[in-house]
């Protein structure tokens, strides 16, 4: 007997509902990023100064404390 994929539609529909918050959040982030790109990032020239001094000096340890 052939089982149609629709037989499991209930599972997939409920699964999609669990995915919805992630999709909404990722969508919002993508929209925000697109808007930022359209407006131009005013801080682009500060690219090299994003991180605090010495933040990655010791790569394998926790960051240095103040």
């Amino acid at each position, binding site marked *: 007997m052939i089982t149609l994929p629709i037989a499991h539609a*209930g599972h997939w529909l409920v699964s999609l509902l669990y995915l919805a918050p992630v999709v909404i959040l990722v969508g919002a982030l993508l929209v925000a990023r697109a808007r930022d790109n359209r407006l131009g990032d005013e801080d682009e020239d500060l690219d090299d100064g*994003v991180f605090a001094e010495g933040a990655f000096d010791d790569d394998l340890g*926790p960051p240095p404390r103040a």
Partner: protein
Amino acid sequence: MRPVLLACAVALGLLACTLVVPQDGLAHGLVGKQDLPIPRWLFAWGAAVVLVVSFVALAILWPKPRLERESPDGVPLLRLPAVAEPLAGLVGVVLFATVVYAGLAGTQTETANLAPTAIYVLFWVGVPFLSLLFGDIFRALNPWRAVARAVAWVAGRGGGEGLPDPMPYPARAGHWPAAAVILVFTWVELVHGGGSDPSTLALLALGYAALQLVGMSLYGIEPWTRHADGFAVYFSLFASLSPLHWKGTQLRRRRPLVGATRLVALPGTVALLVVMIGTTSFDGFSEGDTWSDLAPDLQRFFVDLGLGQGAALEVAFTFGMLAVVLLVAGLYRLGIQGMRSIGGGVDAAQLGRRFAHTLVPIALAYVVAHYFSLLVYNGQSVGYLASDPLGDGSNLFGTATATIDYDVVGPNGIWYVQVGALVLGHVAGLVLAHERALVLYRRARDATRSQYWMLAVMVGFTSLGLWLLSAQAP
């Protein structure tokens, strides 16, 4: 129709379809035991809202790092006599020997033998709970470490030159051996057909202890235990979240989560944490309908390649487990790549190691959520197994006729604990990530922006966890 309107229409359609399909009908005729006031998926939405609100609150109300700046030593609470540590080690050795003996000499019926319950419930699930509450107690109980220390002590007192100096632990190995140990252990538990056989477990335990003794003799007791003893590393990670920690025999108190900020992420640390989360996720996934639909097809595929039915099923489960581990790794990588979009030019691996500790509370949340019921129900079986460890009808402590009380926590109670653990664990992950970002980034605004994608990852992990739990729920 505009794309946004179309998306809204599809979402509303899905919502309507789901609301008219009865929950019990979806569970393949299983009789529903939970009686929840709202559908389970709505808990995932609620959890996502809690995480977003927490994120906003952190951005507004937590502008400076606190946990990262706090001393990990804390304040002393009490000091035990020096003899407590070797005594705890002795207890660990006795427990280990009892479990191994029961596995080898007792009945091979897994539910009647002490070994499977002791290893999979008390050790694998119980010790993480205890580590969260009381700090790294396994360090003192660790039987192979206790044996190695006893040997070193005897050799040191025996005169002569004692034991030769150990070699330096290879830095490149980092936590990779620990990640491999956890992956193999969970493979035995979840995939291997004979993974619950008492004698198989006993032999594996003996083999593991022998391997640890060889490793400690080559690279030193502490370096090996801290890096390559998979279980010691696994439990110590959970203990780093605890408000209590041990410095020798002194018990000290500190703010919860402070220990995690001091995690030194070595090569393999991220892999270890991803394996911890991924294998627990697969445990839940493999009990759900999606895997039940998928596994026979995969099994048939491997049978067609020439494998026997049993081997094909094991290979299918192995692929499934590795796929879920890779999915978790991909989710984490997504968060890290999102962080990189802020700028700064740091490579993803470096940034990933800096935020590795944020996965620790998530791993614990998954353990609590997935295994709480196992611990609460099956953990009670230690009552009769302690009296009859071999399953031969003994009654050593007069409790051999004890039974499991399934009313100790109801199905609704289990569900609320699971949801609470997942939400709390992910909020803790957000706090740790926010703190680390405040330390790493020059400006608070960049720190917050860098965490947008991490928030998406946390919501993703929470939704995944709740989806897996709902698939298992009665």
